[in-house]
Structures are given as C-alpha cells and as structure tokens.
C-alpha cells in the first residue's frame, strides 16, 4: 500500500515556478532518495509534502488522505490550521540546519511536541525521549543545550525529536550537507538504521554512496521536474539521460570501480545466497502463518541489497533481485 503519493504537484512563487507537475509514489517501508542540483526544487518538494508550504496545483496523499486540503465536490479547500497541524504530526521532518530549539535542553526538545500535542505526561515523554536518545547514541547529552553539541550530535537529536511523534513517514532535507565530513558518517548510520527497521523515508541528499547503499528508489530532479528515476545502482552507474549523466559525471569518475565492484559483488552475493535465502524465506513464511506475527521484519537487510519487508513477513528483494537474475543467468562461469 502506498504511504505517500504525489500527483502532478505544481508550486509557484509569484512569477517563478519551482515544481512542474511532479508525481511520485512511496511504498510502506521504502526509502526514496532524491538527488539533483540546487534550485531543482528538491527542498521545496519536501516542504510541500511536509505541509509547510501550500500547493499551486496537484495533490499529495498520505495513506489515502489528502494533505493540506479537503475535497468538496471538485474543489480543494485549504484545511483549518488545527487540522493542518494534526496532519503534520504524521510526517516527521529533519532539516539541513538541524533547527533544534535553542532555548530548550536536548531532553526538552524531544519531549516538547509529545507533551503538548499527544498530551503525554512528563514522565512518559521523558522515558520515551531517553529511549530515542539511546537509539541515536546520545544518552549522556540529555541535559545539554544545542549550542553545546557538535553538528552531527545536533542532527541526531533532530532525528530523535522527529521520531518522538511516531510519524508515518520521515522526510530528510539534505541531512548531512551542513556537517563536517567526519561527522557525516554518524548521522548516516542513524538514518541507515532507521531504514533497516522499516521506516518509510524520503531523503534528499548529495551523498550518492549513501543513496546507492540504502535507497530502494532513486529520483534525479532538475528544474522542477523528475528527469530520471529508477533503481539506485543502475541509475548511478549507467544513467540514460544526458542531464543526469552530466550531473553525476564527477561522482561516476570517482566511483567507477566501486560502482562496478558493487554491482558485481552484490549480484555474486545474491547468487550465492539464493539457495540459502530461499530456504530461509520458506521457513519465515511458515513461521509467519503459524505465529501470525511479523517478527521476521527485524531480520537485517544486508548492505547493498535493496528491498522491503512485506506485510506478511516475507522479505522481498524486489527489483534488484530481478535485475541480478538477468545479469547472472547468461554468464554461467560465475
């Protein structure tokens, strides 16, 4: 079931058109990465999806419900501020410049929204906040203020703050672009963890390697339109569109060997694992039908293997697996 759908979204600021009819679909548990040059509308797209900006045209839906507007006959009427705020609680957003509340401690940052909106008591909210801080690896920083933390730490707190509202989908707007290179990894690790736990995510990023690693689907945007989209590794290593190719030129040159190696390596992995994987999947399905639980969701996804957990507990490798099949079958020497 698609969690997030955008249908022909347009966004204009006066004379300037930023988004021109963008459509996309994000399935439950899927990680969508958006790459593109500055000014392409990636951040605007995220802000519109998070209901921080209004639309000039088109519709966005979260779990079927129209975001930001209600349909009356054939016209869309803007929602009241209260209904809009309620919709925003279902969407978590992480910003490029962290945007932690400077007047509150780390713990207060995370507990503010749950206490005010979900009406949790202070103990409940703080307990939850400490669990989230443990998850992002910052338990001992709960009394600190944002100004006392490094960029990477602040971003991790921002992720914990967004998670505190238990959103259906998480949006990341260039989460590591404002960080020193040595701090990027710690934040990417947290995001990757989230992805492996099955959170539906849309990540706008310049970290191509991260996109290749974690994304299920990759979109390249330029000038307000989706120029090309597809499976991450094939798109990054062999783009069809000329514009995509020129954008990725530097990345392609630097990472030629790595990308080729990754494709080969992951397909080899897939091949050798196929037999054991099939046996394991069969066991899982049997387990799921007898137990009726989705505990098998938490089996770790190996890096480079894109895929998502289906609702019945089986682990589908989706498109990636199919591509490997066509690559490996003719070459029987492997």
């Amino acid at each position, binding site marked *: 079931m698609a969690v997030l759908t955008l249908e022909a979204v347009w966004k204009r600021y006066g004379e300037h058109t930023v988004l021109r009819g963008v459509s996309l679909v994000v399935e439950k548990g899927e990680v969508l990465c958006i790459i593109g040059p500055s000014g392409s509308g990636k951040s605007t797209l995220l802000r519109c999806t998070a209901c*921080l900006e209004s639309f000039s045209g088109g519709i966005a839906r979260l779990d079927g419900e129209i975001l930001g507007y209600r349909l009356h006959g054939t016209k869309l009427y803007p929602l009241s501020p*209260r209904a809009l705020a309620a919709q925003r609680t279902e969407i978590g957003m992480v*910003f490029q410049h962290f*945007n*932690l509340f*400077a*007047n509150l401690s780390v713990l207060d940052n995370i507990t503010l929204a749950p206490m*005010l909106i979900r009406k949790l008591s202070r103990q409940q909210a703080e307990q939850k906040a400490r669990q989230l801080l443990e998850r992002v690896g910052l338990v001992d920083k709960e009394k600190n203020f944002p100004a006392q933390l490094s960029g990477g730490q602040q971003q991790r707190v921002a992720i914990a703050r*967004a998670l505190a509202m238990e959103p259906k989908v998480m949006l990341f707007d260039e989460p590591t672009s404002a960080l020193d290179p040595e701090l990027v990894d710690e934040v990417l690790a947290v995001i990757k963890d989230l992805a492996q736990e099955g959170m539906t995510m849309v990540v706008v990023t310049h970290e191509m390697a991260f996109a290749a690693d974690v994304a299920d689907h990759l979109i390249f945007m330029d000038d307000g339109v989706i120029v090309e989209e597809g499976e991450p590794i094939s798109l990054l290593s062999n783009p069809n569109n000329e514009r995509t190719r020129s954008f990725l030129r530097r990345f392609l040159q630097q990472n030629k060997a790595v990308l080729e190696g990754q494709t080969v390596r992951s397909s080899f992995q897939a091949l050798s694992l196929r037999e054991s994987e099939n046996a394991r999947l069969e066991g899982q399905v049997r387990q799921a039908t007898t137990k009726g639980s989705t505990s098998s969701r938490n089996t770790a996804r190996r890096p480079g293997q894109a895929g998502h957990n289906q609702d019945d507990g089986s682990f589908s490798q989706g498109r990636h697996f199919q591509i490997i099949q066509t690559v490996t079958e003719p070459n029987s020497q492997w």
Partner: protein
Amino acid sequence: MTPTISGPDEWAIARQRHLSWWISATFIAVLAAGIAYSLYMNPNVDHHTIGKYLFSHAILSGLRTTIILAIVSQAIGILLGIILAVMRLSSNPVGKFIAGAYIWLFRGTPLLVQILFWGNLALFYRHITIGIPGFVIASYATKNVITAFVASLLALSLNEAAYMAEIIRAGILSVPSGQTDAAMALGLSKLQTFRKVVLPQAMPVIIPPSGNQFINMVKMTSLVSVIAGGDLLTEAQNIAAANLRTIELLFVASLWYLAVTTLATLGQSRIERVLGRSKRSVGQRSSPIRGARVVGALIDDHI
C-alpha cells in the same frame, strides 16, 4: 651550513604609557570639579532647602505616584505591544492595517499633546456611556472616571505600546525562521510555537531596548505635571510655587529621578545576565562584547 640567529631568549615588551589618557582625564576632572564648586558656592542656591524637602511627605508621595505610573504604564505598554506586534506580523490584512495605523498615530504625535488630550477629555466628551444608542446600561460623568491619574496612565501606556510594538516585532523577526519551520513540522500550532519557541528566543533581543524604554518612561512621567497628575515633578512644582525656591526643588526632584533610573539600570543588567545564560542561538560566532571591544580599540587608536 645554516646561519644561526643569536639574541636574547626573551624580548621584554615595554609597558605602553598612555600619556594622552592621563592628560585628558586630568583636564576633565578639573573641569567637573570647577562646575560642581561654582554650583555649591552659588549664593542663590540654598542647600538647607534641598535637605529639608528631600524626604518630605509630599515629595515621597509624588515619588510613589511616579514609580507606580512608570511600572504600570510600561507593563500595559508591553502587553499591548505584543498584541500589536503579532498583528503587524500576521497575514491578516485587517490586523496589519489597524496595528500599523495605531503605531503611526501614537508615535506621530508628541506625548505631551497626548497627555493634554486625555487630561482634557471631559471638555469634549461630557459623559462616558456603556451601551448602544437607545439602550443605555450605565453612564458616568467623564471628569469623575478619567481622573488626572487615570488620564496619565492612559496616555503613557498607549504611547508606550506603540514603541514597544516595534521593539517586540524586531525581537520576533530576529528568531531564525528555521525554528518556526521545525515547530510547525512537529505539528505545534502557531500559538504554541510563539509561546514555547519564538518568544523565549526573542527575549534577549527585546530586553535591552525595553530597559531603555523603561528608563525613559520614568522620566516621561514628569510630563503629566501639565495635567497635575500628582507625580514627583507636580509635587516639587507645587512646593516651589509656595516657597519660590524653584531651583532647589528641581534639584530635589532630579536627585530622586537619578536614584530611580540608576536602580532601573542595575536591574536591567541583572535581567540580561540571567536571560543570556542558556539562550545563545545555534551557530552564533561573534558576541556583542567583542563588537564593543573593537569599537573601543578604534577609539583608543585615534585619541
């Protein structure tokens, strides 16, 4: 072969002697002493009178009225100022216009004129009536409701609100928009965002000019003497009218005004220090103190 440089291990730095500082300081000290002496030795100024009235009942009651007027007007001015600032910043065109017109009117006319206006309201509005034309709930004679004290309060607070509105608006605008973005993205309402995120971060920007406003307010209360508002200056002038010792009574009033404003200045420093502890915004590199030091250094270089 590499040449070796020989010399003392430590180059002693001579202490800078600012001769110009000493000369200018001496000159100013002599000048100030001269003025003070001439005032003290002036035969037309009677020190005994100053001492007699400094703690008299009338003066102290006037002082009390001044302090009450200053504090209450400033408080009302701040509250009304917040409302006006929010109206100015809202997307509602009606609110924007009303707030803008109010600020234009009350900043555009002299405070003295506003005080005279409120003080003489009874001249053109004989009665204050609650109700609608045809159906009257209650009616009062204006001169009974709008006393000199009430008129002073009205004039001072409404005038102050116009200035505070601009200060508070500047404070709100100083909070980075990302803070509001994050708060809205979490699902907080506009009011919640304002109360919990924006206003606390706007305070360090609002406090210094507000302290300035309060110190001005203490002195502006002296203007209500034109409608006999019962403040410090009114009492001083009343006494002077009786015993003809105008300068001495003005000295008395000035000493008290100086005492109150000094206390207010100290209070402001304390508030700033308390509020500034944890409210530094993210990414702040320079501090106002550093800026002040640079300016000070520039002045030093050019004396």
